[in-house]
């Protein structure tokens, strides 16, 4: 009884207390609810959240003058009108935004910026029950369907014959529920370009006139594009991110999905922008700042792979050979007659039914048909075949192939991966050399040259595409102690030489394009800087062993005040042979004869002999000897250099 009374008493007490609390608290609570956002804004200010690293990662803030500025340029990315340049204002606007009315639905700040919201809720210990319930239908639906299995940084390597690809590209792949990599999601950041001509394109690209967007595609679309059409091998770097880290990255991708940033080819490019996604996943990775703080302002996709390796973020590497690589690999397993057979099938000169007994053994029939099918795919991708012709031949080859019950070898099993790109030499080069030159006078000299990027024929090939030279802003100065003179020798704005070997299967055009300043011999025997544009085209073939032999037809325009009509235009052939006698030694010999027939008329005949010896990936000793005849003057020089890649 006593106990019962006590219980009743306690119950009454509770009821009383409950009402009392309600009565006393309800007006106060309403006030507190209204004040809650401002209390949080105060708290955020006190905690200096706007200075926190993660806030700056999510908003892409970087130091700019005395303040900070976001690299994202789309106003939609910010809730505060001052958001781009004011991290505090954006933080406060976001905190207030969390409490906006539920009627906004998918447009609610919490739906648009889930990563920011989640971080603020955590940092400010926001009471979830005091947030207005909001339904983010689109976001929830998407996230519900994604299992974060792994994240992969994908690097389609350079494609030898196309300069737009020579630096490579990077994208991120999110592996979800489906085990097949092909069904993963590829997150790509790229510039949206208009229909501009070459020079306009270059100008706009350099100065940020294009808008960069993030896009998400099925990975098979990217594999088709890189492997099947552009014929670039793909490197896949699986990152050691945890499921939570990948989730954070995907939340941030959601925030970026409909925004743009001004795209700069060399700095704020595809590779740089992806680094923010990785920082959002794992803030302890310091990836974006080092690129801005160092003297070198440009970002080369291959460098970002190196950055990730150095930060121990890479778990494993996978090589995905392109269609063209696959053809070369399949061909290597066959004898010459069988290769010819495959080409005959692809060219329709022979029907699969006529193949009987023509291979060295019956087991070789299937590999020949496999090769023929891929050669057809290759030629079709190169527009060398009409769709109807291609399909008719392709299907007849496949039909014949399907009658042989054996399964083909996995390409990835037979294709030996080349050196991983990040293990090759670094892109910037500093060369110091000493040499001797003889023209009308003889003298010793010391050379110093700097090349910010990227790869020269005489640089070590490991990790790079054989025969693909692309030098940017190669700057060289010469000091001659006898004269005490320091002169600019060269300033090559761009210097591309693309030697793509032709064979039974491929018939690419090799070409060059070089422009910039060069010091050349003049009529009076003096040496002066001229501005030149030097394009050319021709063919290259493999040289037995390891090497390339090539011939080009070149034209050369030189501009100088000293020339008659201030210019000299010449054309003529050039030939070269590059060999790699051993893994560490490269040797090259080149000759050219150009006749200048317009403006200042003269001839230049030259021969160059080069050797380079690789000490390690980033140190090379090179020797260059050159002899030339210009006007009636002979120039002979030899220089021994040490090349350091950094």
């Amino acid at each position: 009884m006593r106990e019962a009374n006590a219980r009743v008493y306690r119950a009454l007490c509770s009821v009383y207390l409950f009402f009392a609390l309600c009565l006393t608290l309800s007006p106060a609570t309403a006030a507190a609810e209204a004040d809650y956002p401002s209390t949080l804004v105060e708290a955020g200010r006190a905690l200096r959240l706007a200075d926190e690293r993660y806030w700056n990662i999510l908003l892409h803030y970087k130091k700019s003058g005395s303040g900070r500025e976001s690299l994202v340029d789309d106003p939609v990315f910010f809730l505060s009108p001052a958001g781009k340049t004011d991290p505090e204002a954006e933080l406060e606007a976001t905190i207030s935004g969390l409490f906006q009315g539920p009627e906004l639905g998918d447009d609610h700040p919490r739906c648009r910026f889930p990563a920011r919201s989640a971080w603020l809720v955590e940092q400010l210990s926001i009471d979830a029950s005091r947030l207005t319930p909001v339904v983010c239908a689109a976001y929830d639906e998407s996230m519900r369907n994604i299992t974060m299995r792994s994240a992969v940084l994908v690097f389609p390597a350079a494609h030898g014959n196309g300069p737009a690809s020579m630096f490579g590209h990077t994208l991120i792949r999110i592996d979800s529920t489906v085990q097949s990599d092909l069904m993963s999601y590829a997150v790509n950041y790229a510039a949206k370009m208009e229909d501009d001509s070459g020079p306009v394109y270059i100008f706009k690209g350099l100065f940020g006139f294009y808008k960069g967007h993030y896009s998400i595609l099925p990975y098979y679309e990217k594999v088709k594009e890189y492997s099947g059409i552009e014929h670039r091998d793909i490197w896949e770097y699986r990152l050691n991110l945890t499921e939570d880290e990948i989730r954070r990255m995907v939340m941030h991708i959601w925030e970026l999905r409909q925004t743009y940033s001004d795209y700069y080819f060399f700095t704020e490019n595809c590779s740089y922008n992806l680094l923010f996604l990785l920082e959002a996943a794992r803030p302890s990775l310091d990836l974006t700042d080092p690129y801005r703080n160092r003297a070198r302002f440009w970002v080369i996709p291959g460098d970002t792979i190196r950055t990730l390796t150095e930060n121990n973020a890479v778990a494993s590497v996978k090589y995905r050979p392109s269609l063209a690589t696959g053809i070369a690999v399949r061909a290597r397993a066959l004898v010459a007659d069988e290769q010819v057979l495959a080409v005959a099938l692809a060219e329709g000169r022979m029907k699969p039914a006529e193949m009987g007994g023509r291979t060295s053994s019956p087991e070789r029939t299937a590999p020949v048909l496999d090769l023929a099918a891929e050669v057809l795919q290759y030629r079709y991708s190169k527009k060398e075949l009409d769709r109807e012709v291609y399909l008719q031949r392709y299907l007849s080859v496949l039909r014949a192939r399907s009658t042989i019950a054996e399964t083909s070898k996995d390409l990835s099993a037979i294709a030996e991966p080349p050196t991983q790109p990040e293990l090759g030499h670094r892109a910037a080069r500093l060369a110091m050399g000493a040499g001797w030159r003889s023209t009308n006078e003889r003298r010793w000299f010391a050379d110093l040259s700097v090349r910010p990027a990227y790869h020269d024929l005489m640089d070590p090939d490991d990790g790079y595409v054989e025969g693909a030279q692309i030098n940017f802003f190669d700057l060289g100065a010469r000091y001659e102690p006898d004269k005490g003179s320091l002169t600019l020798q060269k300033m090559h704005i761009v210097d591309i030489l693309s030697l793509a070997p032709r064979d039974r299967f491929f018939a690419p055009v090799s070409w060059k394009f070089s422009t910039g300043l060069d010091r050349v011999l003049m009529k009076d025997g003096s040496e002066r800087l001229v501005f030149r544009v030097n394009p050319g085209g021709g063919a290259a073939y493999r040289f037995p062993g390891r090497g390339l032999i090539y011939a080009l037809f070149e034209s050369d325009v030189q501009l100088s005040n000293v020339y008659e009509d201030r210019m000299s235009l010449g054309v003529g052939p050039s030939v070269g042979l590059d060999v790699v006698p051993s893994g560490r030694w490269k040797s090259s010999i080149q000759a050219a004869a150009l006749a200048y027939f317009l403006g200042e008329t003269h001839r230049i005949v030259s021969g160059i002999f080069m050797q380079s010896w690789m000490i390690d990936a980033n140190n090379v000793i090179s020797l260059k000897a050159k002899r030339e005849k210009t006007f009636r003057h002979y120039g002979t020089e030899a220089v021994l250099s040490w090349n350091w890649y950094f």
Partner: protein
Amino acid sequence: MRKMLMLVVVLVLSLTLTSSAFAYGSAGCGLGGIVIGNDPGWKQLVATFLNGAIFSNQVFGITTGTLGCGKPIWASNNDRLNQFVVANMDNLAKDIAMGKGETLDAFAELMEVPTAERAALYAKFQANFATIFPSENVVLADVVDNIVIVANN
């Protein structure tokens, strides 16, 4: 004047040469479905801003049905599988003829074929290649129907 003209011609030629060296094709769909544009390659750096995939609902949702039960999963509105087949038709045909391959594996997974049953199914597909791809004019719906017929035989 003539000299300047020549100079201009050479410069234009060199630029043309350079931009043609930039040229790639672009990806398309279906058997032989590589649409090759004449756009210079740098424009191909533009990825179509496709906001589907990861953040759209339709592409998900392979829920029930395995071939083993004799129930073709095509009955469901399976956009994701269809998109995949349309986009990878050439490689799928090649893998079927060769008896294996990554595209065929992805296809089998999307069809929810248990791993243990795949080798047998691939052999069946290979043996019936001519039934699945009767002509070069075959359309997606036919390929899909033919595959289902072969698989259920």
